[in-house]
């Protein structure tokens, strides 16, 4: 099963916490492939995909950050009208719920690579394959 390791880090809405975290990662020579912040008035969850997941995990642990490693699916969504809709319709067809999604910073023209977190990964991967929607492999996501 080809899924991508994502880290969700708990960040309180205190000034400088986000900067502190991204600086920590940068100073360890780790590249952020993409990130997304979900936030409320009190706290945020910063979701990141990096080029070196093992090192990142060790770094987060050592520095006392509250995080969860989760697996997400990367989808190569065609960059045209209805591209995202096609993917969501396919998932809907097999009753897979999308918890959240966000985009990669685009590197390939004509494609909008998207990160999707679903409640049933197995079912999602099967239907995407059946519908000939391309999956972004972990290697592609980490860009090794």
């Amino acid at each position, binding site marked *: 099963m080809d899924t991508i390791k994502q880290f*969700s880090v*708990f960040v*309180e809405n205190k000034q400088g916490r986000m900067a502190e975290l991204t600086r920590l990662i940068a100073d360890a020579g780790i590249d952020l492939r993409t990130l997304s912040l*979900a936030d*409320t008035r*009190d*706290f945020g*969850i910063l*979701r990141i995909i990096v080029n070196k997941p093992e090192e990142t995990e060790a770094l987060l642990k050592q520095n*006392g*950050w*509250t*995080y*969860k490693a*989760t697996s997400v699916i990367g989808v190569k969504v065609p960059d045209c009208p209805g591209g995202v809709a096609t993917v969501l319709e396919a998932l809907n067809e097999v009753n897979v719920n999308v*918890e*959240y999604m966000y985009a990669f910073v685009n590197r390939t023209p004509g494609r909008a690579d998207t990160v999707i*977190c679903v409640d049933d990964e197995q079912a999602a991967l099967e239907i995407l394959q059946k519908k000939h929607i391309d999956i972004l492999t972990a290697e592609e996501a980490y860009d090794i």
Partner: protein
Amino acid sequence: MAKYWREDIETMPREDMKKLQSERLVKQVQHVYEHVPYYRDLMDKKGVKPDDIRSVDDLYKLPFLSKADLRDAYPTGMLAVPMKDCVRIHSTSGTTGRRVVAFYTQHDVDLWDECCARAITAAGGTAEDVCQVAYGYGLFTGGFGLNGGSQKVGCLTLPMSSGNTERQIQFMRDLNATILCCTPSYAAYIGETLHDMGLTPDDIKLKAGIFGAEPWTEEMRRTIEASLGIKAYDIYGLTESSGPGVAFECEEQTGMHINEDHFIPEIIDPETGEVLPEGSVGELVFTSITKEAFPLLRYRTRDLCQLTRGKCSCGRTLIKMCKPMGRSDDMMIIRGVNVFPSQIETVLIEQGYSPNYLIEVDRKNNTDTLDISVEMNTEQFSDKMKDIQEKERSLASAIKTMLGINPKVHLVSPKSITRSEGKAVRVIDKRKLHD
């Protein structure tokens, strides 16, 4: 293993104790009347003479002393001996107003050490033990009090004071400490740090802890006991009454035996001052009966408490006080409801959260607001926003069931709430800034 430090006193039949207390009370009242003009005036105003006090049954005739009286009398107005006869002072922190300074003669220090020695013995301590005192040393009474008791028992005493937690654990391991004395919040922090260092209770030799100087709950006791692999004993005292050791817990852990040969307790109605029958909940009042330098007659502690004189399985006949249900100072009135931080702490621990929390009370649009920040651990953290919000809601609803008012709960990262090495700050009441 010695079970009691002073068997004759600790298991004395009630009638004999009452006789001893009466003799000492009569002398103490005479001493105060002669040497403390401040209290003499209070007695005169009430029309009470030392001759009116013939036994403990006459105690109710005496006027009360409040913390405000002690502040008025600052610094030496309550001193009952010449200052040159004193050997030490201690002082309250003064966080809730002017400081109170308590004075001690050598006799007073000896009696205090004796009270603490009883507490250490009741916690299983003997001359074989290594006692790590991680209460603050200085004006605060915790460090010196337990230090004195520990040396009296003959324990090897480690005068660590509070702070530098990794060093605490290093000494604890290197010198095989068996008894730890500190505030309960610091004990919890030491337990947490031990775990963070990758150690377990098997890596230390501690068997008992004597924790006091701030209110703590039964739930917190279980947390500390599990994290350090010990039995945790409560100890009670006030700077005004000499310090810790006024009352101490035995292995039954169902309340603290009061050293009645030095302190007479009463429970009064905090509104009317009327003495309540045994078993009632009310304000705890203490009368010292053996002090030279700083005797206090009928001192109102503001601690809400209950006294019971049931038979204790440890064999002590000393009356027991329950864990104070809250200091009347700690009580917050939020939207007309009386709230103690300990009630909130109980819910948090029941729901599987850490005892690290911060309560913030404010007033917005003429309505009191109650915000509670609680640390969650990595297992409690979820990648999904709605899970965290659901946890916050469910915790808020459990607190509402306990208090009757709806709080706003904020889950925060582990270790983001400042740890305390002494008394923990649990409440910030911002309403006072507006008044």
